Each structure stands twice: as C-alpha cells, then as structure tokens.
C-alpha cells in the first residue's frame, strides 16, 4: 500500500477502501495537522480541522483533478480553508502578528513517511520563502496561511495598504521565479 501513488490512494479513498484511506491519512496527516495547528494554534481545534479535511477529501475525492494540482496541495488547500473558517469563528480579535508562525522557525519533526515523500519539495519551498525579505515573508504568510486580506495585514502590521499590496505582489513574483512556475508576468 505504501508504494502506491498519492492519486491511487485518493482513488481508493473515493471508492470507500478503508486500507487506502488509512494509508492516505498516514501519508499526509503530519502536513495537514501541522498546517491546521499553525493556523488555529490549539491541539484540539487542529485535530478537528485535520479530521474534517480528510472527511471533505473523501466526500469530494471524485472531483479531484490531477491536472489542476497535486494531491498534497489539494489536501492542504482544504485544510487551510477549514482552519481559516475555524479561526474566524473562534477568534473575533485580530491575530497578533507577534505570534505569527515564521516558517523558517517552525519545528519540523518529519515522520518516516514524510522523510521519503515530498521532503525535498517542502525544503525547496521553505528555502524559497527564507530568501524573501522578512517584511515580504510576513505579509505573504499572513495572506497565504491565514487568509488575511491586504487591508487586514495593513492594520495588523500598521503599514500602509499600498505597501502591503506591493510586498505581497513582489513576494509572489519572486517565489514564482524561484519555484520556476512559468515566466509571463
């Protein structure tokens, strides 16, 4: 089961195969839970988010389109959206920017599976993020992980809205170049 591709396991989940579902969960639980925890900041809520992520993946697995992204990014997008919704319900006050997870400083204890699966990609993305100037990285992390709008980031960071927009845009373009995604903007 471990040798199966992510897509094959997702197909198994879609069709109700418990073994495939368990293998898919084991493969991605560290990433999904880690992302959820970093956003909601609470173990119980993070587990709820992570569980709900796999339940939604199961419900919508048939809508997954491999041409539009990998299973990892699809699952993490689901997790991010659920976590952001959870955060909005749980916290009415703005997120303290001081508690924002700086990606470079997050403890990373990869599972045995993760060491073999996608670890190089993770490192590649982290390295690209770490190359960004701190203010760009903060703006981008608040937007990409926490779903904060440019105006919200502007208020959180006490920075003019135009500056925040420029930081986000510049950071995205740099990442696109570093990650070698197209070349036409």
């Amino acid at each position, binding site marked *: 089961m471990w040798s199966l591709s992510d897509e094959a396991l997702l197909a198994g989940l879609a069709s109700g195969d418990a073994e495939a579902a368990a293998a898919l969960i084991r493969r991605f639980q560290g990433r999904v839970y880690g992302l959820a925890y970093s956003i909601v900041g609470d173990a119980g809520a993070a587990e709820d988010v992570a569980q709900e992520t796999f339940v939604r993946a199961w419900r919508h697995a048939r809508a997954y389109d491999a041409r539009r992204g990998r299973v990892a*990014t699809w699952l*993490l997008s689901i997790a991010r959206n659920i976590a952001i919704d959870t955060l909005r319900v749980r916290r009415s006050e703005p997120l303290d920017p001081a508690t924002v997870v700086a990606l470079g400083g997050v403890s990373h204890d990869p599972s045995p599976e993760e060491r073999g699966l996608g670890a190089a990609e993770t490192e590649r993305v982290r390295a690209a993020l770490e190359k960004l100037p701190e203010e760009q990285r903060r703006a981008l992390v608040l937007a990409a992980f926490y*779903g904060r709008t440019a105006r919200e980031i502007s208020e959180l960071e006490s920075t003019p809205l135009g500056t925040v927009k420029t930081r986000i845009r510049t950071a995205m373009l740099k990442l696109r170049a570093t990650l070698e995604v197209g070349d036409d903007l």
Partner: protein
Amino acid sequence: MTSDERCSPVRELLPELALGIATGDDRARALEHLPGCPSCRRALGELTEVADELLVGGPVREPPVGFESRVVARLFEARPSRRRWLAAAAAAALLGLGAGAVYVGTRADRELADSYRRTLAVANGEYFSASPLLDPRRRRGGHVFGYEGSPSWVFVVVSGAARSGAYRVVATTEEGDRHKLGDMDVSKGAGSWGSAVPVDYHDLELLALVPREAPRAHRLAADL
C-alpha cells in the same frame, strides 16, 4: 486602449486573487477581464500554483496518537466500506480497457492508476467496479461489472453455478428503492447481460438475478 493598458491593472490584482484574499471589487474587475485574455488567465494559473505550493512548505507536526483510526471511523461510520477501489482496478484490467500490467510495485501501480484515470476521462466516468455474483450458499455464479458515469451501466456475466432459465435483473439502492433493470437468459450455466441504469451506480447497493420460474433458492446476488 492597448492590450497592455487593459492587462496592466488586472495583473496588479492577480497575486491577491491567486491567494484568495482579493476584495469583492477587485475580484469583479479581474473576472471581467480574464475571460477574454488568455495571457492573464495563464498568469493567474501560475500564481495560483505558487499559492498552492506555499502550503507544501508549511509546518509538519504529527497529530495525537489514534488520529488515523478516529478519521477512518468517521469516514466509514457514515458509509460502509465496500473496497470498490481494488475491485475497480481489477475490473479495468479484466475489461481490457488499457489497465496495463497489474504488478505489485510503484511503477506498475502508477501506470495502472494513470491508465485507469485516462480510461475514465474518455467519457467523464468516475470509476469501474467488479463484484462477485453469489448464490444463497455463497457459491460464485459470475460477476457484476459496474461503471459510474453518465450514464452509469452494469454488465452481468453468469458462469458456473446458475440454473438455466430466464432471470429478472433487479437492483436495490442504498435507500431501499428497487429498480427492475431488465431480463436475461442463462443457458447451460452461462449468460451475459448489460444495460445503462436509471440511477447512479454509486447509489446501488445490491444487484440480484431473480429466476422468473425457478424457486428463489436459485437467486444470485452481488453486493455492489
């Protein structure tokens, strides 16, 4: 207004659009322009890919012990496990629909999954499945192959244990609704029948071959 002049203000909006944080007004402006501009659409696609990739670089943390079993329990208490997927792969191979080598091993599995996906993509299908057709004493009497698509269809192959005669093909949904799908003849223990079905194959739970004249003891059924 030149193409560049039209694109330039929209390009400014694309990073926020890709991150899903654009305001309603900005989204509306961009969406007005994008349908007619392949270049901006491509740029948005690339930035969306970047936004998705960012999540891969996020923190990793193992969940509390027992997480996997709790999720599996949640999944399968909502709907019983049917192990359709492995059966589906077998069906694709059996039907000769380009399933490729069914070997244990990463490459073969990937080829099989890829071939399976391509096969399904031809007609926007979602999956194939295969289920054994059993008599009341659990002896195998054939197979039911199913296809979830638009339309869904079933193909029944009887071999071995079935008594000769006319059979009614009846399907029952998960909600308990019965659908008479058609009639088939079995001769010398063999027969085949297939048809599109009036409901999603996914919603079917049981398919039965009910003898029209012989006792019900000769009924064959498959859990789908």
